[in-house]
């Protein structure tokens, strides 16, 4: 049964929301989610790569020989990752500095390659775009959610976007007397926090 474009899009938002349902692409999920801003930025960067590599793969899928398709997908994805790197440096340099090594790592994010192989290489252009967009936004939301929890408890802030002059978001959410739970923004907190959120998802899913 063919799904409508809307369904292709929305499935990525909850049904197949990548980091939680499939437990894939965890490195950036854990690595960059110290603030909401980083989460959103990383998510959008990944979405960008997802959508454009899906577009290219869906249009080239009949030309690429199946034996080297993975290699070709990797080249295509890597190209868009470098594009993202360059564009981020040009237009969102602070974010680029914060995300650091995780931007090139989009190349090896299994979600991207997984979608390329499992979806874009078998579907037409439009569904592939919808799929890429859906999965990407789902990924972004996951990162933002995790970032929100970690930033809230770990730094007592909720930063949505930083411009050179101002910060959009709420600072000192619990007031100045709150001693931030720094564990949360550090490495161990990332694991524990994701584990507990996964547990929450399971609880909700089981109902």
């Amino acid at each position, binding site marked *: 049964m063919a799904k409508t474009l809307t369904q292709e899009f929305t499935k990525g938002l909850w049904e197949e929301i990548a980091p939680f349902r499939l437990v894939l692409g965890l490195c950036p999920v854990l690595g960059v989610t110290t603030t909401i801003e980083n989460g959103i930025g990383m998510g959008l960067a990944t979405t960008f790569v997802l959508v454009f590599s899906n577009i290219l793969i869906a249009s080239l899928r009949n*030309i*690429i*020989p199946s*034996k*080297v398709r993975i*290699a*070709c997908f990797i*080249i*295509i994805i*890597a*190209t868009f990752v*470098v*594009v993202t790197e*360059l*564009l981020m*440096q*040009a*237009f969102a*340099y*602070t974010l680029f*500095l914060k995300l650091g090594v995780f931007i090139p790592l989009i190349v090896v994010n299994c979600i991207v390659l997984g979608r390329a192989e499992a979806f874009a290489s078998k579907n037409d252009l439009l569904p592939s775009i919808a799929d890429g967009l859906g999965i990407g936004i789902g990924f972004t939301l996951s990162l933002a959610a995790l970032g929100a929890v970690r930033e809230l408890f770990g730094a007592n802030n909720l930063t949505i976007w930083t411009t*050179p002059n101002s910060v959009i978001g709420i600072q000192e959410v619990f007031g100045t007397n709150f001693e931030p739970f720094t564990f949360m923004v550090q490495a161990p907190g990332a694991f524990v926090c994701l584990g507990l959120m996964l547990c929450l998802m399971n609880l909700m899913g089981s109902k």
Partner: protein
Amino acid sequence: MRDLLIMVVVLTVLSAFSGGLLSGLRNATAARIEVQQLKFVKGPAIKKILQGVSNDPIADRFSLKDGDMVRKFFVGKFDGKANTVVLESSGKGYGGDVGLMVAVNMDDDTIVGAGVTTHSETPGLGAMAKDNPAFVSQFKGLPIAEMFKVTNDGGKVNAMSGATITSRAVCAAATQTGSIYQKLKPQLSEKLKEFNK
């Protein structure tokens, strides 16, 4: 065999295409990226040492050749007059090079301000050099021609307690800045004149 050939050709063409695309994009964005890098890496330091400046020093910049190296200089205008030049150099610290930005007033060859740009020192000690304005403000008003040394070594600069090596690195960087300034001074004043036109 045909299969293999097609595989190689497809791979090659695809990577060549990607190379083309990327180099094109790179060329298109290179200028902007440079500005961004300067703005975010050097920008804060420059802004701090050039307080009260009337222009955008990042935009008003020029390069000069110093032997094999190309050095970047930023121009500061005070009261509409371009009389200050910012230059950078580095000294060897505890965990790598410590970068130092020094602004020099070309009218009287004195230091207008100094700021640490990059460092990889131990957090809390050496890193104070960047965060601690008291340390770098010691340089303010000193003549650039001086040899900068910490008090322990018989100089005037008070070292940050517990971070002597970093302090020395900053001093060394400042001294080096002086020598570069002296060497390139004629060209620098030429350039400044252009900005005053």
